[in-house]
Structures are given as C-alpha cells and as structure tokens.
C-alpha cells in the first residue's frame, strides 16, 4: 500500500524525528511511504484562533494535496481530527475525499495489524512508559485503547496507567498562550499525575501536547522525558 505521510507543520519544523519514525513504522508494516512536499499545515491553528479565512485557505491546500493519495497517515490525532471534522466543511468535496482517507498512525496500524498485515514488525523499547491520551485523538477519533494495545506489543516496555487519563493536559493550541493561567493550572495537575506513575517516559499521539508537557517538565527540572508514540513504535525498525 502506498501511504502519503502527513507529517504536520509542527513535526516538520520542530520534531523531524517524529516524521522519520512514522515513516519507519509504516515501512515496517509493509507500506510504501511517500511525502508530498506541497503539504504544510492543516489549518487548525488558524481556525481555532478565530481566523477562519486563513484556516480555510490552508485546509483547502492540504485537502488538494491529499485527495489524490491512496491513504494518508499522520502522527497527530489532533490534525487528523481537524481533517475529519472540519475539512469537509472548509474544503467541500475535496475536503471530504481527503478526510476519508486520512488516518492517525495508531488508528492505521491497529487496522492494518488486525488485517494480519505487518507480521514482521517487532518493536522494542526498554523503559517504563506512561501513556498520555490527547483529547482530539480520544474524543475526536475515538482512540481509547488502540494506542495502548500497540504499546503492549512493544518488547521491553512497561506500560503504566495514569490517574484520570481522560483529563485534558491544558495545551489546546491557541488556548495555551491566550489563557496561559488556566492552561498551566491544567498542565500542573497532569504533570503531577504523570510523575506519580513512576514512569521514565511520557508518550502520546501528538507532538503538540508533548511539547507543552515537556516545556513544563523542563521548567520543573523533572527527569521525566517525552517521546512520541511513533518513536517508540519505530524502536528496532531500523
């Protein structure tokens, strides 16, 4: 299967490793990965900031790039939720077509593995890991147990449960800078819960939430580190 990698603007600019890891995982389960360089941003940041016109413009451009693909996979639940829930409205038929074939990484993998594809994939990662459930993946895409089920297949990985998994970490994109006080209050509670697990690593489907949490951990001087799900799943896929 040919898969178009929807890397997201944030990963492209700041977390290239996440994009590379995603490609490796996809290849490990037998996909041919392509990257269309015309892609930039799904439009979510602008839409959520109240600039619908710019959000639409960006969404239309993305939808046009991806509408031609066989399948589109992204290491971001949030950007995929944006595609699924808003591209049809913002980008019409092209938006609908593109959204229908766009999947978040763990969603795509779960589906593929369930079909018996990707048998040779044997990820390894040594460490105690807590799973952070990002809201857009959780409620926008219904990602509840799928990512955790994938993590349980990783050799050497100890998966730790976190208290109140469904609570938002306080990132919320534009919210994090426009309402920093509330955002940070939410983040503090989340970091407390994550630290209480005794994990060494926090992982999740979204670099944005992880960037927010990592920023707070660094400010706290915590030893806890963040790592994207794709990077864990790519362990041993080189």
């Amino acid at each position: 299967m040919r898969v178009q990698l929807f890397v997201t603007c944030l990963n492209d600019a700041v977390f290239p490793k996440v994009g590379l890891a995603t490609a490796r995982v996809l290849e490990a389960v037998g996909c041919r990965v392509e990257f269309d360089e015309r892609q930039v941003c799904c439009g979510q940041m602008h839409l959520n900031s109240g600039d619908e016109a710019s959000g639409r413009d960006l969404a239309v451009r993305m939808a046009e790039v991806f509408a031609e693909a066989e399948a589109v996979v992204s290491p971001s639940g949030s950007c995929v939720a944006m595609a699924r829930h808003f591209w049809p409205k913002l980008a019409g038929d092209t938006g609908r077509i593109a959204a229908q074939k766009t999947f978040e990484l763990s969603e795509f993998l779960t589906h593929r593995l369930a079909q018996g594809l990707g048998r040779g994939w044997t990820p390894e990662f040594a460490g105690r890991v807590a799973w952070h459930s990002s809201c857009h993946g959780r409620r926008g895409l219904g990602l509840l147990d799928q990512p955790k089920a994938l993590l349980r297949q990783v050799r050497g990985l100890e998966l730790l449960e976190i208290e109140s998994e469904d609570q938002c970490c306080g990132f919320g994109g534009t919210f994090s800078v426009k309402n920093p006080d509330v955002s940070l209050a939410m983040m503090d509670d989340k970091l407390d819960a994550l630290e209480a697990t005794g994990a060494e690593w926090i992982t999740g489907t979204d670099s944005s939430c992880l960037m927010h949490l990592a920023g707070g951990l660094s400010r706290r001087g915590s030893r806890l580190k963040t790592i994207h799900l794709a990077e864990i799943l790519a362990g041993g896929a080189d």
Partner: protein
Amino acid sequence: MSGGGITPSDRFEKAVKLTLADGQMRANLRHATTTIRRKRQRAQDEVPDWQELRDRAARMKDDAHARLPELLIQLEERVQDAGGRVHWARDAAEAREIVAAIAAGYGLNRVVKVKSMTTDEIELNDFLASRGIAAVETDLAELICQLAGDRPSHILVPAIHRNRREIQELFRRTLGADLPTDNPAELAEAARLHLRRTFLAAEMAVSGANFAVAETGTVAVVESEGNGRMCLTLPRVLATVMGVEKVFPLWSDVELMLRLLPRSSTAERMNPYTSFWTGVRPGDGPQEFHLILLDNGRSRVLADPSTRETLRCIRCSACLNVCPVYERAGGHAYGSVYPGPIGAILTPQLLGMEHGEANSLPGASSLCGACLEVCPVKIDIPRILVELRAKAGVKPAESAGLKAAAWAMASPRRFEAAIRWARRGRGLAPLLPGPLSGWLQGRDLPEMPARSFREEWRRSR
C-alpha cells in the same frame, strides 16, 4: 448582591487571574466535580438506550425550535384555557417589570423563590428590592448565595464554590443557627427550620420552569429539596419566568427530559420531586398563575442555524462538571450566571458577538471535547466554540501574526524559509499563535532541530 445577570465586566483571561488565585474555591470545586463525574457516568451506564435518548432529545429540541412561534402560541392558549395568564417579555427589564407589577397588583411586598437561573439571568431580586419587594431564595444553594452575597457560580448548585465549613460559618453568622458540626445533613436542617415559617406565610412565589409542553399547557419544575413544591403549592399567586426555548411540542416528549435530566445533573435515576401543573386547579395550589415568556437574546441565538443548537440546553450542568477549565477557573470567572462550557457559548450569543468582554468566552476552552461527550442533548459545544471564535474575530494585535503565519504556510517554500528563520532566532513564533510570553510563563520552548523534516527526508531518500 445576589442576582448575577449575564454581562461579564471583564474578559475571561483577565477575570480568571483572580479566581485561579482562590485556592479554597479551587479545592472545593475540584472535590465537588470529581465526585459527581463518577456518579454521572454510572447513572448513564445504567441506561441501555442512553445514546438513542440523546439523539432523540436533540431532534426533539431542534423540532421545537424550528416551530417555536407556533408552539408558544399553542402554549399560551392552553395555559389561558386552564385559567392561567401569559405575559411576554422582550428583555430582562420587561420581565422584571412584569413580576414586580404582579406582586404590586396583589399588594405584596414579599415573594418566595424557587431556584431559577432565568430569574438570576434577569437580576430579578435586586430589582424587586428596589421596588420594596423582598425576594426570599428557598433553594439551599441559592439561599447560601443570598446570605453570603455571592454570585452564583454553577447552574445547578449556585453555591458550589462554598464547602461545608464555610456554610456552617455562614449559617451561624446570618441565621444564628446553633451548628455544632459541619455535617451537611445538619446544615440542611438549619435551612429547613429557617425557611419553614416563611413558606407557611408566603402569598406569592416566583419560579422558573424546566420545561413546558405546548400540547397540554403543562409547566414543570424539577427539584430535590421540596422547596419547589412548597412554593408551587402554598402561596395563592405564582409567577413563572421561562425562556422561550424551553417549550416543547408533545406531552410524550416528557419522557426524554425526565430520563436525561436527573441522571445528567445530580447523577440520580430520578430527582426527588418533579411538579407538573397546568394553569390553575381550583382548590389546590395557587389560584392565580402567571407565565412570563422571556426572549432576552434567545431569538438572536436562534437566528444562526450553525449555532442555534445552543438553545437545546436543558441546564443539567453536566458540561460544567466535566470541564477542566471550569474546574480550575470557577464559575465567577465567566462573569455570567451561565458559566462553564454552556456559558462560554450561550452568554456571548445572548449578548451578541460584538460584546467586547463576552466574546472572550469562546476562548475559554482547550477544545478537549469532554462537554460534548456528556451533554444529554448533544450540543456540539467544541464546534460552536470554534464557530464563535471566528465570529468574534481576531484582535488586531494577533491578526498580524496570524496573517503572517498563514502567508508563510500557504507555500512550502515560504514555510521552509520561515523554519530557517526560526532556527536562527529564538523564534517558534510563526508556529505559536498569540504572545510568546504566554507560553514562557510556565513552559520552556523546545530546541529547534538542525534540519526540518523535509530536509531530512530529502537527504535520506
């Protein structure tokens, strides 16, 4: 003060600085909302057709709103046929005048009140006081607010920001109650004793309504304590203020309300008491019934098809109880008697999106979606928040940054240039909407990598 109204005096991001600093209130809210969340989930899980109920209720409400003028006229006719009187109020001021005139018409200077967010919305109590009419709140939480001079901070439990110890103190001070402990049962008993004589002597009651049925002219109040029954039964005059959106078509639709509302609000299978009445019943209860139908911005909300589902709200408060922003900010930060997720979409729509303070409210959300998940009438609050942000528009200070980012992101080449530029400076700026200082307030920025993904990709392939 005890009324409240719906007009915030500050933007949310500013008001919240004060409320976040109140550690006691945050602890109280956290305790109360965590408790109720678990119970609500259990109450929902017990109902096999819960998701269908939500769909049915959403359709029912949409149907009601699409036919609102016709249903209101039908309701008016039925209520009149049954011996009641119907009044129409365009705004808060008209509604207040109507209630005051009713009391004055009977020569009364005191009314008892059943908890009603609608009368808080129109700031009825302060107005009646200015006309020499005392309004006595009889719902425990409203009484607490009234005695403490607090604004309501929750639509179901307006005094949720107070814990038992604070209430014990308040009742000792204001009611002279002898309260050796802060046991909630004893606090409730103190309220019972305090209000009992008031009920028995009451001549007029003012209530809200949870809903009214157009087909039959029946009005309903859903409650727990029995203060509602007292107010709806003992006085000879009853005035009920109801938002126009609360009417629905058929008596059979009552099923939806009574199955969804109690489980969503107090997490009970059924609330202790629900009273239904239709006009006046000779020899039983008030012999004068006035129903006041209030617009106060609701027609404005109705006017936009993309956001009108806001009016489906049955004020259960489930969305408040699961909202992480509400839990930390507290109700007062929203500056309106309607706080939390529903407040963030309802208040600005009632007031109009031009309202400079209220239009900050749709920003008061991380868009986590917990509210939609629990809303019994399936209001897509996250989507509406986004729609309203667009309507509120972007502040000039942010607009330049957003436009610049959009320009850069509209072309892969410009985007790459922006990344290189960001790498040289400190600047994640093109990727962070709004001021960098907001981010840096409590978080460090990640290091920029030596190469972007697309550069890496080109090198590796």
